[in-house]
């Protein structure tokens, strides 16, 4: 998958967890999921579970530790799909 394809599939997943005061248009590649998009940090595990289901991958604890931005997420998915 290209990064663009992954981003498009990722967008609706992330949107689900946005708080009311953050608009989906604010989501871009560099967006920090918790600091900028204000996603509740507890919900990061739910984002990851949804991503695992959508992309048929499995995140390790180390992957989760590195996950900060949309780009990080895409990179981890790419890495998993290419190994």
């Amino acid at each position, binding site marked *: 998958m290209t990064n663009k394809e992954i981003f498009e599939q990722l967008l609706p997943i992330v949107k*689900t967890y946005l708080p009311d005061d953050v608009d989906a248009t604010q989501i871009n590649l560099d967006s920090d999921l918790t600091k900028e998009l204000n996603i509740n940090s507890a*919900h990061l*595990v*739910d984002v990851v*579970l949804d991503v695992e289901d959508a992309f048929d991958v499995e995140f390790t604890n180390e992957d989760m530790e590195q996950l900060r931005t949309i780009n990080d997420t895409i990179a981890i998915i790419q890495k998993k799909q290419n190994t």
Partner: protein
Amino acid sequence: MKQRVVITGMGVCAPNAVGLEAFTKAIQEGVSGITHHRVLKDLQFSCQVGGVPSISEEKKRNYFSELQLRNFNASGILYGVIAGIDALEDASLSIENQDIETNYDLGVIFGVATSGVEKFREAIYKIDKGNVRRLGSTAVAQTMTSGVSAYLSGMIGAGNQVTTNSSACATGTEAVLMGYERIAHGHAKQVLCGSCGEDGPYTWGGFDAMKVITYKHNDTPEEASRPMSASASGFVPGSGAGALLLESLESAKARGAKIYAEVLGGEVNSGGQRNGGTMTAPNNEAVQRCISKALVNANITAKEIDYINGHLTATIKDPVEIDNWVQALDRRGDDFPYINSLKGMTGHCLAASGSIESVATVLQMYHGFIFPNSNCDVIHPDILANISEKSIPRTLVQTSIKTAVKASFGFGDVNACIIFRTYK
């Protein structure tokens, strides 16, 4: 100097109606909320009937966000939130008003017996398959005992004490008394008090195994729950939630709030599982003491009681409860006050019963009626030996109630009794 405490808002999610207006009408008309449940039959339960509130998917979305409903599987929290938010809105304290900042004067005391049993079952299956990482982020929030209080406080910004009490079937009545105490002693201005209970085979299975619920009415669910009846054959399990917004009289007056009734006080105690009391049976001396002490704490005499909302679950113990009332109040025969049991319509809503029945009690006082006792055509002879048939209305009675008493008794030999008075 103790603060006077009044009720300024209520909400209810009962098997026979959801919402105050519908519930008022339902209890006036004696509408049953007991239905047959296929799942109980398939799982070979002796008792296949139960009382479950009817909540549409659309209604859920009036109270919860889509995100909150993702992987949500805790019926008690659902009912508790609906009743709690309704009570707050009924008190003209809308969620929007609470939205901006933490309100340190508002507390939540919302009791349960269990939380998220169905969610816990889901989690157990995942864990046993080595899939603990797939539980998601809300398994704890839904299964922790204080889950309902935590959901509610987040929605309304409650910043005073936020907690969950648990005393089996006395839970709801105890919650109201705990909120009363907190306000009376000046520690809070408003406390959202209530309780909720879950439904389904995993919540009710233990009671079925104990043979304390009826197996005789699987084909006639509306006739299954028969408090005070000669043919009572065990209780019918139910679920739901009731909520009462308690507030200092001072605060209620200052903001011109509608006042349903005053809480004069009450008592909680335990029989200590001594003197005839066990895990499942009451120490009658303790029950009577709880009622008598409630009168003392409320500074009233037994003669002032116009109406009793009984615990009366429809087991063989109903005549014993009546005798305890007779002894504690020292009133018998024609002198006995009106008494009824909501459980004929709703079943026994367990932890939720005390709060749902407190709401029913206050509604009767506010509107001036006494709801009919359902399924009680032939009253148990031991009850009639003690009190007059006139005290047990089987049709709607229009009458004013000045002073009412509500009691609940629970497994573990625990008791709670509360006195309400019409506010004028």
